[in-house]
C-alpha cells in the first residue's frame, strides 16, 4: 500500500478507536461541545456581557428571555457563561502549552545527557517544584498585574516542573532501550535521537500528562479569579463565581448564578481527565493488537 492509503487507514483506525473507547468518546464530545459553544455561542445569545442592565432585570431567575436568568448587574447569565467558555479554554490550552513545552524540553535533555547537565537542570526544576503555586501566583499577579496574559504565564511557569520530572524518568528508561543503541550505531546525533526516538516514546505519557495539566490550568485560573486575582475585564467562569460570591448570590438563593459556571468548570476538567486516561491506549500502536 502506498502512503495515501496508509494515512487514510490510520485515520480510520483512530476514529474507530475513539468511538469504541467510552472514556475518550465522552471526553472528546464534551470538549467539542464546549469548543463549539465558545466559538459560535454568542451568535445565539445576543445579550451583552458587560453592559449593566436595568435595576428590575437584576437577579431574575431562569425563564423567558434569559434562559439562565440574570446576575446581580442585570447581565444575562448564559451570555456570560458562553463568554467564559472562551476565556477558560484559552487559558487552559495556552498555559498547558507553555508548561508542556518547557517541561518536555527540560525533562528530555536532562534525562538523555545525564551527568552534570542533569544535576543542574534538576536542581533548577526542584526550585520551581517546591514553590507553592498559589502564593506564587498571588505574588506574581500582584506584581505583574491581573492581565489575562500574565495569568497564563503564571500558570505555565508553576506547572512545568511536575511534567519535567515525569518526562525525565520516562526518558531514563527509553534511553536504555536497544533501538536507541541501534540509532547511535548508525551515526545519529544526540539531537536526532532525542527528537525522533525519545520524544515519540515519551509522547503518550506527555500527552496524558498534558491533558491533566490542562485540567489543572483551568482549575487554577478559576481559583485565581475566584480569589479576585483574575482579569476583571474578562468574564471567565472563575470571575462569575467571584462576583456571585461577592454579591451574596448564594445566600440570596440565586442558584442560577453560581451553579452553571461551577458545573461548567467541573465538566470541562472532567472531560480533559477522561481523555487523558483514554488517549494513551489509542495512540500506542502496539497496544491495539490484543
Amino acid at each position, binding site marked *: 500500500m502506498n502512503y495515501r492509503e496508509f494515512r487514510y487507514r490510520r485515520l480510520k483506525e483512530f476514529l474507530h478507536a475513539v468511538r469504541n473507547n467510552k472514556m475518550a468518546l465522552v471526553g472528546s464530545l464534551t470538549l467539542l461541545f464546549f469548543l463549539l459553544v465558545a466559538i459560535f455561542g454568542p451568535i445565539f445569545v445576543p445579550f451583552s456581557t458587560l453592559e449593566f442592565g436595568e435595576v428590575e432585570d437584576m437577579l431574575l431567575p431562569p425563564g423567558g428571555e434569559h434562559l439562565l436568568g440574570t446576575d446581580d448587574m442585570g447581565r444575562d447569565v448564559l451570555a456570560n457563561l458562553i463568554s467564559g467558555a472562551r476565556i477558560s479554554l484559552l487559558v487552559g490550552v495556552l498555559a498547558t502549552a507553555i508548561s508542556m513545552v518547557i517541561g518536555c524540553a527540560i525533562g528530555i535533555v536532562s534525562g538523555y545527557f545525564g551527568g552534570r547537565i542533569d544535576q543542574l537542570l534538576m536542581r533548577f526544576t526542584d526550585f520551581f517544584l517546591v514553590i507553592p503555586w498559589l502564593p506564587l501566583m498571588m505574588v506574581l499577579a500582584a506584581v505583574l498585574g491581573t492581565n489575562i496574559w500574565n495569568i497564563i504565564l503564571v500558570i505555565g511557569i508553576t506547572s512545568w516542573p511536575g511534567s519535567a520530572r515525569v518526562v525525565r524518568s520516562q526518558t531514563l528508561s527509553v534511553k536504555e532501550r*536497544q*533501538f536507541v543503541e541501534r*540509532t547511535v*550505531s*548508525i551515526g545519529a546525533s544526540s539531537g536526532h535521537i532525542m527528537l525522533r526516538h525519545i520524544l*515519540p516514546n515519551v509522547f503518550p505519557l506527555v500527552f496524558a500528562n498534558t491533558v491533566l495539566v490542562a485540567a489543572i490550568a483551568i482549575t487554577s485560573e478559576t481559583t485565581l479569579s475566584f480569589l479576585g486575582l483574575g482579569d476583571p475585564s474578562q468574564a471567565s467562569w472563575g470571575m462569575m463565581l467571584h462576583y456571585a460570591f461577592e454579591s451574596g448570590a448564594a445566600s440570596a438563593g440565586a442558584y442560577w448564578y453560581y451553579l452553571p459556571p461551577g458545573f461548567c468548570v467541573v465538566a470541562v476538567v472532567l472531560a480533559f481527565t477522561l481523555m487523558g486516561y483514554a488517549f494513551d491506549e489509542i495512540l500506542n*500502536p*502496539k497496544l491495539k493488537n490484543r
Partner: protein
Amino acid sequence: MKNEIIRVEGLKVYYDLKDSFVSNLFTKKKKQVRAVDDVSFSIGKGEILSLVGESGSGKTTTGKAILQLLKITEGNILFHGSRANPEDKAYMKSFRQKAQMIFQDPYQALNPRHLVLDLVAEPLDVNRLVSSAKEREERVVLALEQAGLSPGGDYLYRYPHELSGGQRQRVVIAGAMIMNPEFIVADEPVSMLDASIRTGILRLMMKFREERELAYLFITHDLSLAWLISDRIAIMYLGSILEIGSADDVIKRALHPYTKALTAIMPTPGVNPEKQRNTLPGEIASAAEEIVGCKFRTRCDKAFDKCACERPALKEIEDGHFVACHLY
C-alpha cells in the same frame, strides 16, 4: 594480514561497580567488573569469526566495544590499519557507515512507533546520503528486497509489531546493509527466532558475505551454530579468549579443557539414550571478583599449581590454532 579489516589489540573494558551507599561508607575499595580482559584478534575481508561463550563471558561487550558503543578502558581497535578514535568526528562518521551491528532481539532493536520505511531509511537520513523522498524510498525498497522481503513496497508502511520475528530481523538487516558496510557485528542474531526461520537468516548473511566480501564478528552461545557458519572460532570465558582457531580445529580437535567440556555438552538431535551430558562442576564465577592466575582454574579438573599463579597467554599449538592453557 593484508586484507585485514578489524584488528583488536589488548582490549580491556572495565566497569566500576556502584556499591550500596552503606558499604561505600565502610570500604574504600571499589569493585571493578572486568567484562573484557585483554582480548586480541583480527578479522579479514569476507571472514567470519565467531565469539563463543556463556553469559558473562564478555562476548557482547567485546562486540559493542569494537563498534564504539561503549567506553573502552584500554587497548586499540584498528580499522583498516588506522586507530579508532572516538573523539574524531569525521573518522567516526565514516566508521559508522562501514561498520554496523545486527541485534539479538529484533523487536527491541526497532522503535515500535516508526514505520519500516523510516526505520530502514534512518541511516540514510542521519548521514544525509539521499536528496529526495523518491530516492529514499527506492533505496529502502532495494534494501528490503535484498534482505529477502519481497516485494519491498508492501512492507514500507507497516509497523514492527505487524511483522513476524523473522521478518523483523530482516528489517534490522536491511537497515544495517543499506549503507553497504564492510564489517558487521552480529550479536546472537538468530537466538530469538524459531529453528526453521534461523536458516533463512543465516543463508542471507552468508549470501552477503559471498557477494560483498562482508566480514562478520558473530557472537553466540551456541557452539554448533558457530561451527556451522564460521571460518574461525574464539572461545571466551570471563573476559578472556581461551582458545582460537579454525572452526574445525576448535570443535573437532579442541585443546582447552573448557572447549572440550563445551563440545561434549553440545546437544545433538537424535536418539541419545541415557547420555548424561557431563557437566562442569560449579557455575561461572563473577567477573567482579579478581581471579589470580587462570580464570578457568576453579572449574578445571586438570588444574595444577602454576594455574593459580600465572595467567596463561595464547600460544600457537598448530597452524593458526592458539590456546591459553598451562597444559601446553
